[in-house]
């Protein structure tokens, strides 16, 4: 892709620069900052209250707050823009009640704006921050907070000046995840009529038919993301102070009744807005519009979705395991490199990735066919770019970062002495991995597999472009119906995706409880 961008025309670029690009760039930055800020507010606050206070219903809120992860952002964006639009049901009802006639009669926030997009995207992405912050807080050495108490701080102050700074690396990682998701998301911002750098990529590619410049713009975007990734890794370097003494009793800050109600309300609003409300809308649609025909229509795309997601999850997990163990056991000083490189894939927008894959598989396919012909075999056709191989490959590239993160954190929890013990017992490396590391890692492997599986089920843009003939997935079915303003018909598929997305969340929660 970078090569392709070298041939970009400077004319078009300067035209864009003189007209719309500055606004796009500022929109991109503002959106990124806004989403990160809001996700941090939503995520860290809720995590802090759930872990350190006696807020009402924390037993349920603890995992309910994870649910928005199961919602594809494009779905929520569509549902919300539809609902809060001038012509949407909320404003219509209000106009009905108060007998307003036109927009000049009253003020209502405009959902199709930068802040609107920022809020809705944050509602879907904040659970990343919540999840990582909560885990960090729960695993902190509670003696540090106690030390703070005895040095004269109240429980609240001790939390603010000790626990929170210590959770900073986790918060930074989650913030960078949120930022990458935001910048990589083309479809969602589109519903909000917000123009970002990604809009420019599409315009130059599809409108001006100038793929080179589009690639150049996409490269800018990726450099931006790369910068974030590096900055995040820098921030994390040398900061590793999780406690190795789990199950310490965490001091609970007692809140007044009013505070409990208020904060519980805050968390419930997040759950409601990020999951329950959109899910309820889907269910209502499904009840109103669905019939048996739709159920049967679900089968084939459902199976397709499961098939590609299954392959992708399995391959990604396998590679993540290889990389993680290589990183652990190798003494090569560049051993960190492969896993860092793989991480970038997550930040690449699906469509851009698909383009890059087409660019590399296309010639490869030609090469294969040419060879086949010279060898007098039947030409195999487009074995790479024309089959689900391409789709699975795209998923592998895109979601490796997720599996890597999960598995490498699992590997980190194995004490280093475990690497040495089997050798001292005369067991070889292969046996050691099989008998020691893999069994210990089983939960991480499973979680990684599930996360990738669900993300693959949700992924849209790459499948859209790379799929073979007559190959629909659930996400594509939804997309087609949405783009024709007929989500009602696809509500069942949407519900299915969401329900599948709930699986890893339930599992994650369950394994936490068990441990």
């Amino acid at each position, binding site marked *: 892709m970078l090569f392709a961008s070298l041939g970009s025309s400077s004319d078009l670029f300067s035209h864009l620069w003189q007209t719309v690009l500055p606004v796009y760039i500022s929109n991109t930055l503002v959106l990124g900052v806004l989403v990160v800020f809001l996700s941090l507010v939503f995520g860290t606050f809720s995590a802090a209250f759930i872990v350190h206070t006696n807020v009402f219903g924390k037993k349920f809120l603890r995992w309910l707050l994870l649910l928005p992860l199961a919602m594809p952002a494009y779905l929520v964006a569509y549902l919300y823009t539809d609902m809060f639009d001038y012509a949407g049901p909320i404003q219509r009802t209000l106009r009905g009640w108060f007998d307003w006639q036109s927009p000049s009669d009253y003020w209502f926030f405009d959902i199709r704006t930068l802040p609107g997009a920022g809020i809705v995207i944050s509602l879907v992405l904040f659970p990343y921050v919540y999840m990582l912050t909560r885990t960090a807080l729960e695993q902190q050495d509670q003696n540090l907070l*106690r030390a703070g*108490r*005895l*040095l004269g701080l*109240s*429980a609240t102050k001790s939390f603010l000046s000790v626990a929170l700074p*210590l959770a900073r690396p986790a918060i930074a990682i989650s913030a960078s995840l949120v930022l990458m998701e935001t910048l990589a998301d083309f479809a969602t911002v589109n519903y909000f009529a917000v123009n970002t750098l990604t809009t420019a990529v599409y315009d130059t590619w599809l409108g001006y038919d100038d793929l080179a410049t589009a690639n150049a713009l996409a490269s800018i975007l990726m450099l931006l993301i790369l910068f974030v990734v590096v900055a995040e890794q820098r921030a994390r370097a040398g*900061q590793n*102070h999780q406690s190795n003494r789990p199950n310490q*009793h965490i001091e609970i800050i007692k809140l007044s009744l009013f505070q409990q109600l208020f904060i519980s309300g805050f968390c419930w609003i997040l759950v409601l807005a990020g999951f329950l409300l959109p899910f309820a809308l889907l269910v209502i649609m499904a009840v109103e519009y669905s019939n048996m025909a739709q159920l049967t229509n679900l089968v084939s795309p459902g199976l397709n979705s499961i098939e590609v997601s299954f392959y992708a999850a399995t391959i990604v997990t396998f590679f993540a395991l290889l990389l993680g163990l290589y990183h652990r056991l190798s003494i090569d000083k560049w051993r960190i490199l492969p896993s860092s490189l793989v991480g970038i894939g997550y930040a690449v927008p699906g469509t851009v990735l698909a383009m890059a894959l087409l660019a590399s598989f296309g010639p490869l396919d030609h090469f294969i066919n040419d060879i086949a012909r010279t060898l007098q075999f039947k030409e195999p056709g487009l074995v790479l770019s024309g089959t689900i191989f391409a789709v699975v490959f795209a998923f592998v590239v895109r979601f490796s970062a997720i599996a890597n993160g999960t598995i490498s954190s699992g590997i980190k929890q194995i004490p280093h002495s475990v690497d040495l013990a089997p050798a001292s017992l005369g067991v070889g490396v292969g046996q050691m991995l099989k008998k020691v590391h893999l069994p210990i890692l089983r939960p991480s492997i499973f979680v990684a597999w599930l996360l990738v599986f669900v993300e693959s089920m949700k992924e849209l843009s790459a499948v859209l472009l790379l799929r073979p003939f007559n190959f629909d997935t659930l996400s594509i079915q939804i997309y087609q119906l949405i783009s024709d303003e007929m989500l009602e018909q696809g509500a069942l598929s949407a519900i299915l995706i969401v329900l599948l997305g709930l699986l890893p969340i339930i599992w994650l929660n369950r394994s936490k409880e068990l441990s």
Partner: protein
Amino acid sequence: MGANELLSVKQLSVKLHNNVILSDTHLTLNFGDILGLVGPSGCGKTTLLNTIAGFNTPSTGELNIKRNNSNSANLVVQENVLTITPFSHVEPQHRNIGMIFQDYALFPHLSVEKNICFGINKLPKSEQKSRMTDLLHLLKLTGLEARFPHQLSGGQQQRVAIARALAPQPTLLLLDEPFSNIDARLRNELMLEMRQILKQLKMSAIFVTHSKDEVFTFADKIAVMHKGSILQIGSPAEVCQSPNSWQVADFLQLGSWIPVKAINGQFQSAVGELPSTEDIDLEENTVKYKEYSPKLQLLLKSQAIEYYEGGFEKNNVQVDNISITEHGFHYLLSSIDRDLSLSFEQLSFYSNFLLTLGQRIAIKIKIHDYQVFDSYDDILG
């Protein structure tokens, strides 16, 4: 509360997650004393420490803590008693107690300087500076102010933790297994050094340990805990000389145990009847220790064992193990006749006589103030 008392704990019991961890605990601590809480793991000593610090709330009972209200450097105590009951909790930060945690709990994101000044950051900068300088000097940390905890050795980390706890000039210092992470060779030296510092500052302290060596070196008073209650409190010498229960003597390893039977006002053991004199009223003892209890044990210190050349027919023990110590040879003896209910093993005997492994010898128990305990009961009346 007596004028000299800094802390009194009455009838304290603590429940955590519906498990009774402490029950009916009594304790007092005088100003300037260093109290060692000792006992096997799980006996509740850390819970007691945490309750005094304010991290647990009592479910019954009462704690009284005198608090040093002034921030002046010479630790003048203004009488100001905090009373803590199940119904009146005092937040940890208002108790004026310092604590040193087992893993030191230094703030990893702060430098040594910031760690030490953490508790006094409301004082004027100049005051902070002078206290820190004094503490750095006292604890031989000068020059390390800018370092971060992970750049320090274990001993240095511990000294930073001490400096941090001392900076707000607490009335009471709590130490949770303070020496468990220190190299064995350095431990004794460090304990003496720290004891000196605490004494120099007239600091009162309670520390928790499961090592009897630590408690004898470091403490002015020791309290032996067992299953959630304190069995005995006293100076190390008192406790050592007259332990009040089998558990205390056993945990502190004050000697070896040999089983005895009380018959007709006499104690019978595998090495014969215990010799009696008019000074020692055995009869009273046997009554006290439930004549027919099957689990009577005599605490036998090495110096109460007499080795004599009794001839072949009088040999009653054999040598199972020999090791060499700075006090001469250390033998572990066992009774030969294993069938008897009074037979014993692993009787420690220090001697300069040269014996060989498996050798059969004769020993006698010297007349002394016998300490017989019933190991069947947990606590003796």
